[in-house]
């Protein structure tokens, strides 16, 4: 008798945590392009999408491509060719028909939570408006996540880099396809369009399998949300940041996460 409510509570906790990727799934989520700097009249980039601990290893699960958003140099959406998902990764091709910079992102924005109905705790996903009548003690979390990378055909351009002012975003000060090893690259972070000051950002080089040191640099943005990235050696690098804001009256708890893959080229 006494055990039942606590078991229920435990089940609820476990169940909920599986719904919160930022909390329960600590695996890194990434989009890894085959190249970031390209040339010619047109070209194609192929991208792997996966979640893993090691970088950039296919070892855990593929990323769903349902929320794939590709912005072309003119700011218009670009249609990818989805090749599919295997056990550990998803793969898609992006045709680069126009000169300039493309932003390739997995963007999600959703509400999840729980409510009580007839003495039972229920979980839900989606809008609070769709909850059954009589639902009480509604607890919700608004999650926004963005996982992205950038590629450029020809000369870099800025149109695709404009912020959407939703969730946690990186606004490049140094163009993301103009980064070289040994030179500082400056990025600016925004949370819902406002400078994300004092934000902790994880910065890690790929190739974790081949070194003993995890190589994680924990960086912090300044008051304007600015951050300087520096890498001594060339390669693909991973960035991750997240933020959480407590629920307030009329506002659910808000969580936002951001991950990116940036290539540092040799000069």
């Amino acid at each position, binding site marked *: 008798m006494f055990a039942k409510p606590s078991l229920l509570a435990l089940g609820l906790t476990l169940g909920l945590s599986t719904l919160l990727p930022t909390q329960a799934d600590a695996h890194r989520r990434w989009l890894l392009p085959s190249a970031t700097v390209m*040339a010619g*009249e047109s070209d194609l980039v192929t991208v792997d999408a996966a979640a893993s601990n090691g970088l950039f290893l296919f070892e855990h699960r593929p990323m769903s491509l349902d929320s794939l958003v590709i912005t072309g140099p003119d700011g218009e959406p670009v249609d990818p060719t989805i090749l599919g998902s295997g056990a550990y990764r998803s793969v898609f091709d992006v045709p680069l028909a126009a000169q300039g910079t493309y932003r390739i992102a997995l963007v999600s924005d959703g509400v999840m939570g729980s409510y009580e109905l007839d003495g039972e705790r229920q979980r839900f996903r989606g809008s609070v408006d769709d909850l059954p009548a009589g639902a009480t003690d509604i607890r919700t979390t608004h999650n926004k996540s963005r996982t992205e990378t950038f590629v450029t055909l020809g000369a870099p351009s800025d149109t695709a880099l404009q912020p959407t002012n939703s969730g946690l975003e990186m606004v490049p000060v140094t163009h993301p396809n103009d980064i070289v090893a040994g030179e500082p690259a400056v990025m600016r972070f925004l949370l819902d369009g406002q400078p994300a000051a004092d934000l902790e950002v994880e910065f890690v080089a790929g190739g974790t399998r081949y070194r003993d040191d995890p190589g994680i640099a924990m960086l912090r943005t300044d008051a304007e949300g600015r951050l300087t990235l520096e890498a001594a050696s060339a390669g693909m690098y991973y960035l991750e940041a997240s933020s959480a804001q407590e629920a307030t009256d009329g506002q659910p708890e808000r969580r936002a996460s951001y991950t990116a893959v940036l290539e540092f080229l040799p*000069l």
Partner: protein
Amino acid sequence: MRTSIAFAFAATGLAAAPAAAQEMSVSVEIPRLRVAEYHRPYVAVWIEDASGKSVRTLDVWYDVDLSPEDGAKWLPDMRTWWRRSGRAMKMPANGVSAPTKAPGTHARTYRQGSRPLANLPAGSYTLRVEAAREVGGRELVALPFQWPPKASTSATARGKSELGAVRLTTKR
């Protein structure tokens, strides 16, 4: 008319030759390599000013005609030139781009007042040569020089892998 004559005399007095005769010759040696699969390198020759800004691209040797493929696809392999100049240029570029060249020494002379050198303002410069080879490596060679040359000079730098001797000769 009078002033221009006076100017011409002054210039002659300083340089002892008409300004239009100023020229630079660049010779680039592409080494013969003993490798299983050899492709001629892509080579870029350009000039940077004292601040490191690329001010002239003189030569780009690449697969100009690689139909049905686009030879421009591998231009970014010359990473430094691509970042500082190439990506902002329209290729092929008249008088600048040319087909890849076989192992050996290739020389070209550039004259002040003529493309692609055009009128290079007086200053301190660096001539850069970058080579990138398919299934091979990449190498950069640099030679500093003054323009216009105060005397006829010659300088040589030597690559270790993808480039042999790079020679810059200037004539006042």
